[in-house]
Every structure is written in structure tokens, then in C-alpha cells.
């Protein structure tokens, strides 16, 4: 008899649970505002959830983009870059024009590799291993060691090692902005810049700055701010805490003032169209 009572009471619990789920299913706003739009955008996206755009998946990216459409041109969706008609539909859906060129990110190496070797290194041929050994065999502890970790990581073989200078060289045409190399470099030398940028800053100054009395190679930035002063179109913004110049590619007219005035020639032209790799 008691068992029957127990069965009935447990059944009552089951009923309450079902009711709870049902009420929550009804009460919670079924339609998140703008969910329809998010669905629409999500259908356009490749749906690979690869995460290259830095979001937790295509739907999360669609959610963010539907909130502020300008994001579409900053985040890279490598799959999307290929087909233009999807980008057109996305532009209609978002009501904003997507600048595919700046959306198409490129990897930039912040080092010209002119600091000389302290000792010749014959250990494990990988930058990670070499950088563990007292920060690498170059005079500057944050210079590019040129042992090819990024080269091995790059799926589109856009990175090769320049023989005499011993640093990585990035072929901007092949580079698809997948950012796989960024994580591989132990010295954080590579970061992704917009495909539109015109001037490249070839020194890993922001990392070295923390080390007092650091050694500089003759191409290292002396943080003299001449480029900042010289730029007439104020396309250069001086990043205070990192004490490095940052370039606003929209305002830059490629007048070349900053590149000419830089005493240690740390600045270079980046625009692949003008000079593929002007050293």
C-alpha cells in the first residue's frame, strides 16, 4: 500500500517537472528581439563554426553583427571572402557596405632582423625552443629568430624564411588572414592588420619596452615620435601605454613623410600593390 502511495507521489513530482518545463518554455520570450534577422544572417554565413572570426561560432558572429553592422568589415571570415555574391546579400541584410579589402586581414611581422647573433645556436630548430634559452640568440630578446615556427603553422605557405637576414617573410598575396601564425610565434611578433593598411611598423618595441636598458638593433624604434609629428593628415595615433605609433589606413594618403623622416628606418611601406616588399 505504501508503495502505491510512493508511486503516486513520484508521479506527482513528474507532473510538476513537466509543468515547470512547459511554463518556462512558454514564459521565456520565445523570440529574442531581432532573432529573425540573426537567423537570416546566419543562413548567409558558411556555418563552419571555425572561430577564425574570434566568435564562438557563426550564430554568435551573426548575433554580434546584427547588433552593430560595422563589425562585419573588421572581423575576418576567411570562408566568406571568396564569394562576392554572399557578401552582397550580407550588405543588403545589414544595410551597410562591407569593405572586403579591410575585412581581408594580413599578418604583419614587427621585426627587420638587423640585431646580430650573440652566439650561434645549434639547439632544437624551433623558435619556441630557442626563445626558452634566455630569450633567444639575438642581441634583442624580442627579435625574430627565423627558425620557422610560423612557416610550419601557415597552411597557405605564405611565410618563408629570408636566408641572409634570418627572419620570416610574409607574402601578402598568399596570406588569407587565418591568424594561425599569430599563436605560434613565442615572441608575439606577428599581429593581424587590416588589408588596407599602408605603412608597417617593423619593430617589436611594445614587447621590449618592459625591459630596462634593453639592447636595440640599428633598425629598432627609438620612440622619438618624429613620424607622429611629421604626419600632416594625422593618420598616426600615438598609443600612450604601448608608446608605439598606430596607423589609421583610412586617413593615410601614402605621402611617405613618416617613412622618410624615421631616423632608424623602422617604418616601411605595407601596401602590397605599391611595393611588394620594400626593405
Amino acid at each position, binding site marked *: 500500500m505504501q508503495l502505491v502511495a510512493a508511486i503516486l507521489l513520484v508521479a506527482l513530482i513528474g507532473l510538476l517537472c*513537466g509543468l515547470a518545463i512547459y511554463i518556462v518554455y512558454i514564459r521565456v520570450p520565445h523570440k529574442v528581439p531581432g532573432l529573425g534577422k540573426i537567423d537570416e544572417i546566419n543562413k548567409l554565413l558558411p556555418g563552419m563554426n571555425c572561430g577564425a572570426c574570434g566568435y564562438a561560432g557563426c550564430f554568435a558572429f551573426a548575433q554580434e553583427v546584427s547588433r552593430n553592422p560595422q563589425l562585419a568589415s573588421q572581423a575576418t571570415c576567411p570562408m566568406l571572402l571568396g564569394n562576392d555574391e554572399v557578401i552582397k546579400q550580407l550588405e543588403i541584410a545589414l544595410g551597410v557596405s562591407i569593405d572586403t579589402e579591410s575585412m581581408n586581414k594580413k599578418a604583419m611581422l614587427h621585426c627587420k632582423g638587423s640585431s646580430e647573433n650573440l652566439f650561434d645556436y645549434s639547439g632544437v630548430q624551433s623558435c619556441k625552443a630557442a626563445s626558452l634559452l634566455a630569450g633567444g640568440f639575438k642581441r634583442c630578446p624580442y627579435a625574430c629568430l627565423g627558425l620557422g615556427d610560423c612557416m610550419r603553422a601557415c597552411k597557405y605557405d605564405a611565410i618563408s624564411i629570408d636566408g641572409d637576414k634570418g627572419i620570416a617573410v610574409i607574402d601578402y598575396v598568399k596570406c588569407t588572414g587565418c591568424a594561425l601564425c599569430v599563436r605560434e610565434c613565442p615572441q608575439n611578433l606577428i599581429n593581424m592588420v587590416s588589408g588596407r593598411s599602408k605603412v608597417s611598423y617593423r619593430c617589436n618595441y611594445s614587447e621590449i619596452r618592459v625591459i630596462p636598458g634593453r639592447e636595440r638593433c640599428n633598425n629598432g624604434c627609438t620612440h622619438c615620435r618624429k613620424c607622429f609629428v611629421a604626419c600632416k593628415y594625422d593618420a598616426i595615433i600615438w598609443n600612450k601605454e604601448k608608446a608605439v605609433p598606430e596607423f589609421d589606413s583610412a586617413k593615410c594618403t601614402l605621402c611617405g613623410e613618416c617613412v622618410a623622416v624615421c631616423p632608424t628606418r623602422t617604418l616601411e611601406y605595407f601596401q602590397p600593390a605599391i611595393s611588394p616588399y620594400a626593405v
Partner: protein
Amino acid sequence: MGKWFKEFIKGLVLSNPIFVLALGLCPALAVTNSLDNALGMSAAVIFVLLCSNVLVALIRTWVASIVRIPVFIVIIATFVTMVSLTFEAYMPVLYESLGIYLPLIVVNCIILGRAEAFASRNRLSLSVADALGMGLGFTLAIVIIAVIRETLGSGSLSLFEHVLFSFPVLEQQPVSLFLLPAGAFLVIGLLLAAFRRVGLIKNE
């Protein structure tokens, strides 16, 4: 017939629940300190997995989608409690050694995982194949782990009270690390790396 066999084989090696899907680890680590426990547990898991897959496959068209997980889990819990009651009544030795891990088969991720991911979406016969494949895959994996852990951990390997073989040196000084939880993680990690090296399972 081919499709049925393909599902069966998939569970065994290709998507082995423990090494590939990394599901059902809780009992796999806790119970593999002796071969008898491992076999007892896998018998119970296969039985419950089979029954639950069959029942889930049968009712998959009637169950309403928002309550499907509670319904599946109640079915699994019923089977498990029945198994643990029968074990307690008729096989007390095994019941003693399985201890808390018998009721925890309910939360063994393989069973609900397969019920949710597979049985609720495929025909009955395929669900049976999947249940058998996954069950045997689970057994295969935890038997291998149990053999290694018991031999190293207690110096001898015994199957239902008669000793298969024992290492005199190891018996005096067994590596009791392998009987600890940490040892179990170690064994699974190294085994998985070895399988990947051999190419049995593809790298990440």
C-alpha cells in the same frame, strides 16, 4: 546488412566511447582497478545501453521534443535501478565491489549521449547496432585499462578469484599509484597517445 555492420564497427574503434568521444569516463576510471569490477560494470552498462536504446528508438516518434531528455533519463534510471536491485539480491559480491558506481551508470554519459544523439534519430535496428558497438567498445577499453592498472597496481591479475598470472617482484612492491585516481588518468592518456601514434585513431 552493411549499414548495420558499419554502425557496429564504428562504436568499437572509430568512435570508441572512451578514447575518441571521451564519454563515460566516470565509471571507466573508478572501476578499472580490478578486472572483475570492470567486467561486472561493462555487463551492466551493455544491458542498460541495449534496453534504453531499444526503448528510446521505439518511442522516438511519440515523445514531445521539449521533454525528451527527462523522459530518456527516467527510462535509463529505471533500467539501472532494476539492474542494481537484481545485482544486490543475486550477486552480492559484485554489488559490494561496484559500490557507488552502479547507481551512477544512470549518469554514464555514453547511455544518455547515445540515446540523445543516436537512438532518438535512427531506426530500431541501427540503434541496436550502435548500442552493441558502443557497449563492446566501452568493454574493450575498460578491460585494457583494468588489465594494466591491476597488473601494475597490485602485482597480479585475477579473473573471478583465480589468478591468471602474477609477477613475484611486483607483488612485493606494487606500483600502488595505478590504483589511485591519478594512475587511471595516466593509463588512459598514454594509451590514447599510443593509439594515435599507431594510427588507430586520427589526431586532433
